[in-house]
C-alpha cells in the first residue's frame, strides 16, 4: 500500500518538478570548443557505477555552456594567458623559468593534463599538477612552493592542463602504488561525512541529474578543472571544490593535498576516464 503511494508520489514529482526547473536531464548536445569536438559522453571504464560518464558541461544552463564553447567568451582564458606568462618568468635562486627546461608547453605539456595524477616515485605517493609545479619550483628552480590556491598556482595549472584540451582522460593505475591509492579514494568517495551524513555518492551518484535546490547535480567530474566560476569570478581548483562539497555536509574540511584528498583526486579523475580535458571549463 505504502510502496504504491510512494511510487505515485515519485511519478508526480517527475511531472510537477517541471514547474520549477527547465529539465532534469543532461542536455543532448555536443560540445565544440572553438570548433574542436570534445568527448562529453564516454563509455564508462570497467568497475564504474555508471554505464556512461558525462561531462559537467551537459548539466549547465545554456548561457554557461555557450561561454565554455567560445574561448573569447570564456573568462578563464585570461587566467590561462596569465599562466603562459608565469611559464616564461624566471624565479628562484637557479635563475630559471619553466620554459628554461620545458621549452614550448604546447609540445612538452601536451597530454600531461590527461594522465595526471601519476605516481611520484620520489615522494612515494601520487602527484597532481599543482604538486608537480611545486616540486619543480623547489627542486629545479630554487623557488618556494605556492600557497594552496595562490592565483599563480591556479593559472599555471590551468595553462598546463589547457595544453591537453580535447584529449581523453586516462590514468595509469599500474604505476607504483596507484591502485591502492585508487582503493583509498574510493573509500573516501563512499564515506558519509558531517552532520548531514552524506557521501560524494549521495549527491553525484544516487541523485545525479536531480536538482538540489537550484543546483543541477552532475556526476561531479574533474575533467574541466580548474574551472572558471561566474559566482566567485575566478578559477576554482579541484581540491578547493572537494573541500567545498565536504564542508556542505557540515564536516571539517581535510587539508589540501592531504592523503585523503589526493586519493580522492586519483579516484574521481578515474571516474571521468574517456572524457576530454576541458580546462578551463565554465560554471555558474
Amino acid at each position, binding site marked *: 500500500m505504502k510502496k504504491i503511494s510512494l511510487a505515485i508520489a515519485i511519478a508526480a514529482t517527475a511531472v510537477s518538478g517541471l514547474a520549477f526547473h527547465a529539465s532534469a536531464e543532461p542536455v543532448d548536445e555536443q560540445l565544440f570548443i572553438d570548433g574542436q569536438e570534445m568527448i562529453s559522453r564516454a563509455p564508462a571504464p570497467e568497475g564504474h557505477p555508471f554505464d556512461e560518464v558525462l561531462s559537467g558541461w551537459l548539466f549547465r544552463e545554456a548561457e554557461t555552456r555557450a561561454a565554455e564553447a567560445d574561448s573569447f567568451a570564456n573568462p578563464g582564458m585570461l587566467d590561462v594567458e596569465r599562466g603562459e606568462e608565469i611559464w616564461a618568468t624566471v624565479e628562484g635562486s637557479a635563475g630559471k623559468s619553466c620554459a628554461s627546461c620545458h621549452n614550448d608547453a604546447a609540445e612538452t605539456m601536451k597530454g600531461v593534463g590527461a594522465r595526471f595524477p601519476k605516481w611520484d616515485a620520489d615522494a612515494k605517493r601520487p602527484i597532481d599538477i599543482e604538486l608537480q609545479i611545486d616540486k619543480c619550483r623547489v627542486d629545479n628552480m630554487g623557488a618556494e612552493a605556492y600557497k594552496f590556491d595562490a592565483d599563480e598556482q591556479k593559472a599555471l595549472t590551468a595553462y598546463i592542463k589547457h595544453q591537453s584540451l580535447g584529449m581523453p582522460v586516462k590514468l595509469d593505475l599500474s604505476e607504483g602504488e596507484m591502485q591502492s591509492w585508487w582503493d583509498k579514494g574510493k573509500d573516501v568517495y563512499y564515506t558519509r561525512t558531517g552532520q548531514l551524513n552524506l557521501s560524494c555518492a*549521495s549527491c553525484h551518484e544516487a541523485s545525479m541529474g536531480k536538482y538540489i535546490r537550484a543546483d543541477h547535480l552532475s556526476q561531479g567530474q574533474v575533467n574541466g578543472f580548474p574551472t572558471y566560476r561566474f559566482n566567485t569570478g575566478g578559477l576554482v581548483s579541484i581540491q578547493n571544490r572537494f573541500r567545498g562539497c565536504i564542508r556542505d555536509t557540515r*564536516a571539517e574540511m581535510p587539508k589540501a593535498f592531504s592523503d585523503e584528498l589526493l586519493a580522492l583526486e586519483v579516484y574521481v579523475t578515474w571516474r571521468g576516464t574517456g572524457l576530454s580535458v576541458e580546462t578551463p571549463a565554465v560554471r555558474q
Partner: protein
Amino acid sequence: MNLSKVSQVALAVLFSSGASFAADVAPGDVKFQDLAVTTSLTGVPGNPEEGASVFKDRKLGNCLACHANSSMKSELFHGDVAPTVDGAADRWKPEELRAIVTDSKQVFGSETVMPGFYSLNVGVNVREDLVGKTILTAQQVEDVVAYLATLKE
C-alpha cells in the same frame, strides 16, 4: 578549568541550538516501533506555522533542497532529489512522520539520502562546533511534524 568556567560551558551547551533540554527525549532514547515514533519528543504540541518556517529555512530543515512543496510556491527553487511532500499526511500518520523526520534511516534504510534531523547517528568528521548536536531541536521536529500533518490533498 575552574568551577565557574565549567558552569559557563554547561550553560552554553544547554542554550545553544540543537542541544536538548532536560524534558526532551534524548536523541539516543527515541523509540522506533513499526516505523513510527508514537511518543512526542517534547510533550509540547507542535506548531505548524513554526514548522513551515523550519521547513523552508536553509539553515534549519532546508527540506526544499530535496522536496518540492506546492503549498510553498512563492519560495524559489524546490529540489527534486526526493518525492514531493504534497499529500504527505494522506500517506503517513503523524507518528510515522515523526519517525521520518527524527531519523529517516530507521524508516527508509541506511542508504537513504535524507539526513536524520534529530539523530546522532551522523557522518565522520562532523564540524567541531556541531559535534554531539542534532540538526533540529526536539521541538523543531515536533513543529515540522505538525506542519507535515496539514499537507493533505
